């Protein structure tokens, strides 16, 4: 069903809320504000509740979502969002808590934050956690600021960060934001960063190396412990991008192999909903040496009472107002409690199982450019489809017509025309079989020249036009 923009549906006099009658004297704001007055009313749409409900219900039906089917986006960990967590996070006890509420009222909230910190410490094997960062990228940025504070505090100025070619774009972007220069190492042919490649770039100017582990090819960096050692010898630190933590819960802990910082993506690993692109939450865990620099405030416990401690002279300060995306902490806390220690390990084991099942079923169909011991995700490409013409983007768009979301495409950059598949543990074998069958049908179907998708709400969208003829806001008819 087509649905126009809110503004096109608007009609003068439409009204979607009610207000209590004003029970105090009116104030003439025009007189009061005088020269600080807004000239014309903001042209918000004018619609009733029935129209608004219908508008957004219709819009929603144009979306794909995990609730509708598999979402095998590599390194994005799109998995089922448990419903209880959503219910609790939306309860009035949570929603009506003000960040500056009197301390008596905040005990429960601080306790939840404290417990989540403790659990994340255990998951990483690292001694301290800050929940403050708003999302993974801000977690990276925060981690890098900690690293720079660490060196600064030692009187050193180091300006280089090493990243890998398999890394997410946020890694170099965050490093740049934190004032660093970037040096990139190339992944070896077997899909691992080699010690030599690190040695080659490891000067005294290197503040840290950022590595995603398992990396975006789905491999656990087998040299990680040695890399950490190398780095530490030069007083460079090891930053682990935790985007792929879903592969190693209860199986391996960054703290045990020498990581100094790791950021979590609660919206990936710990099932807070992606929401069409946020809100996320990006807590960080750090090694002993970075503790003094953690953001303030920190949540602490003393004799069963909880408080916020602002008194850390070496802290980098805040990266966000208040204490982080608390609503997401609730969901992650619930998730961790629901799974428990054993359950979390099963999460990762099953994620690995599912990825390897897909690999085993598709390996004769799609080329695997870098084969090895895949954990939770597998990167294919379109090399086998040269003749049939089913290139990566065609396969992706064709999947839409099978009612499935395509994998991550053209990433990681070190693989040409990558198709990066991460099924996650919340897909049943049934759903995996559907996905496998669809891929097989697509690449064996004769005509690769048909432009997909045909059955989605829209056919292929003209992205070039969007960028060339920028239309970023509604143009009112009277303009």
């Amino acid at each position, binding site marked *: 069903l087509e649905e126009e923009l809110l503004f096109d549906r608007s009609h003068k006099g439409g009204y979607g809320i009610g207000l209590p009658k004003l029970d105090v004297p009116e104030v003439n704001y025009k007189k009061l504000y005088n020269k600080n007055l807004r000239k014309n009313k903001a042209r918000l749409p004018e619609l009733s509740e029935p129209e608004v409900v219908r508008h*957004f219900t219709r819009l929603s039906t144009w979306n794909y979502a995990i609730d509708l089917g598999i979402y095998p986006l590599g390194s994005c960990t799109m998995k089922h969002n448990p419903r209880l967590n959503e219910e609790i996070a939306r309860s009035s006890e949570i929603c009506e808590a003000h960040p500056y509420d009197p301390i008596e009222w905040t005990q429960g909230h601080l306790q939840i934050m404290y417990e989540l910190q403790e659990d994340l410490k255990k998951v990483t094997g690292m001694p301290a956690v800050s929940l403050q960062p708003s999302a993974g990228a801000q977690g990276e940025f925060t981690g890098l600021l900690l690293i720079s504070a660490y060196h600064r505090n030692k009187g050193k100025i180091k300006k280089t960060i090493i990243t890998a070619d398999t890394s997410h774009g946020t890694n170099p972007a965050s490093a740049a934001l934190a004032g660093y220069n970037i040096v990139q190492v190339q992944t070896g042919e077997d899909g691992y960063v080699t010690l030599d490649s690190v040695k080659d770039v490891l000067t005294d100017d290197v503040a840290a190396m950022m590595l995603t582990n398992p990396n975006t090819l789905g491999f656990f960096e087998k040299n990680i412990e040695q890399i950490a050692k190398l780095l530490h010898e030069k007083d460079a630190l090891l930053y682990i991008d935790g985007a792929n933590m879903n592969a190693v819960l209860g199986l391996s802990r960054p703290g045990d192999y020498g990581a100094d910082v790791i950021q979590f993506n609660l919206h990936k690993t710990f099932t807070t909903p992606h929401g069409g692109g946020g809100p996320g939450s990006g807590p960080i865990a750090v090694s002993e040496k970075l503790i003094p620099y953690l953001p303030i405030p920190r949540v602490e416990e003393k004799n069963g009472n909880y408080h916020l401690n602002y008194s850390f002279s070496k802290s980098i300060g805040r990266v966000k107002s208040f204490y982080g995306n608390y609503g997401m902490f609730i969901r992650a806390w619930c998730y961790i409690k*629901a799974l428990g220690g054993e359950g979390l390990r099963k999460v990762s084991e099953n994620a690995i199982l599912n990825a390897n099942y897909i690999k085993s079923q598709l390996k004769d169909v799609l080329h695997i450019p870098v084969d090895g011991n895949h954990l939770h995700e597998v990167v294919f490409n379109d090399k086998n489809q040269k003749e049939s013409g089913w290139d990566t983007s065609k396969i992706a768009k064709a999947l839409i017509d099978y009612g499935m979301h395509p994998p991550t495409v053209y990433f990681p950059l070190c693989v040409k025309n990558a198709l990066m598949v991460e099924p996650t543990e919340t897909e049943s074998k049934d759903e995996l079989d559907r996905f496998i069958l669809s891929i097989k049908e697509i690449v064996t179907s004769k005509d690769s020249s048909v432009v997909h998708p045909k059955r989605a709400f829209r056919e292929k969208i003209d992205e070039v036009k969007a960028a060339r003829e920028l239309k970023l806001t509604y143009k009112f008819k009277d303009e």
Partner: protein
Amino acid sequence: MSGHRLLPTTEQDKIDIFKSCGVSSMEDLLIGIPKEVRLKSILSIGDGLSEIEIKRKISQILKNSRNKKSSLSFLGAGVYDHFCPAAINQLTLRGEFLTSYTPYQPEFSQGTLQALFEYQSMVSEIFGMEISNASHYDGSTSMAEAALMALRMKQNKKRILVSSGVHPEYVEVLKTYLTNLGVEVSLIPVNEKGTTSLSALKSLLADDVALVIAQSPNFMGCIEDMQEMSDLSHSKGSLFSANVTEPLSLALLKTPGEYDCDIATGEGQSFGLPQSFGGPYVGLFTTRLENVRQMPGRLCGETVDALGRKSFTLTLSTREQHIRREKATSNICTNQNLCALWASIWLALVGKEGFVELAEQNLAKSEYAKSELTKTGKAKIRYSNTNTFNEFVLELNTSSSEFIKKCVENNLAPGVSLQRFFPDDKNGLLIAVTEKKSREDIDLFVDLLKRFG
């Protein structure tokens, strides 16, 4: 029961998958993880709990939390207790919105995309600015990114002036963001009227200033002369950025666009988002169209599909980290989409007239509270000659922390003690009065002031 409600894979599935993979156990699939760094034990975070147990636990933990039924709060300071129509919670629970990813595949993400376009349009309209991005983490990070953007636009300038009227936590975030960039942040003092000192601004402005940031209503609730500050900034070749922590005020007050702002940011929590102990909220970010390529964050643009039908897609992603890596305009990736959607539905329901009426009620209730609280003789309004919107500073005769304590015993949180931010400010209480407070609520507060003030 051997299964777990969140894990669909059964024992039989496992066996089948092992077979398909040509392995005989889970161990075989884990050999990629070196033995030395394998965890030998189970994580010591307890057994998994059922829904019943989690609910019990949560209600045990929260038993002393603020209870909406019996308690009353006049807290603001950047987070406001505004009303939220029931439809929003229910619409944002729809799996299609809640459980979808960033709309990188526009063909079947048009719902999120059109909603974003509507969000951008409404936010731009409220700010009177030409364009808006598709959301930022929160108000404080929006403001910090505005500074980064200004530094990109004024590449050889290395100083930023920030009014002391800006929310203190925002200033902290700004400073953190600039840590390693060799940029100096100078604070412009606030005068005895509670507003930014224009003379101080004048004397601080110099050629090296890339950006001036001010907030209105400011942290003390006072409405600033933004026009004057904007003009002053521009006259010295500096950009001017407004930070708006209570954007409902823009229903009545001159907009950033009207006073010629270059970048205007703010916090969208006021648009019906739950207070949620500090987040998630939504950072608002607007600017001029000409600055679009320097703008951080995602943008949704209108276009057409293969059949020529109006469609939407993320655009100008060449500014973003996933394409441009270290040269990106920002490192932001996941933003606050669902919060932006929440705000959009709120704005759509509130609508053109409701937005103004809501603001009028805030103003009227706040003015009523001011006048009644003053009448007690137990306190006065600090900066009483300066206009406010829905928030103001009450100067108590007694210590604010003592007064708060007594009020809390009576289930009322009277405001935020300014001592929290300014250790010497022992008597200042920052009070916000929204449309949700009835006259009765305010009178109750006044009574407590009479008793404990």
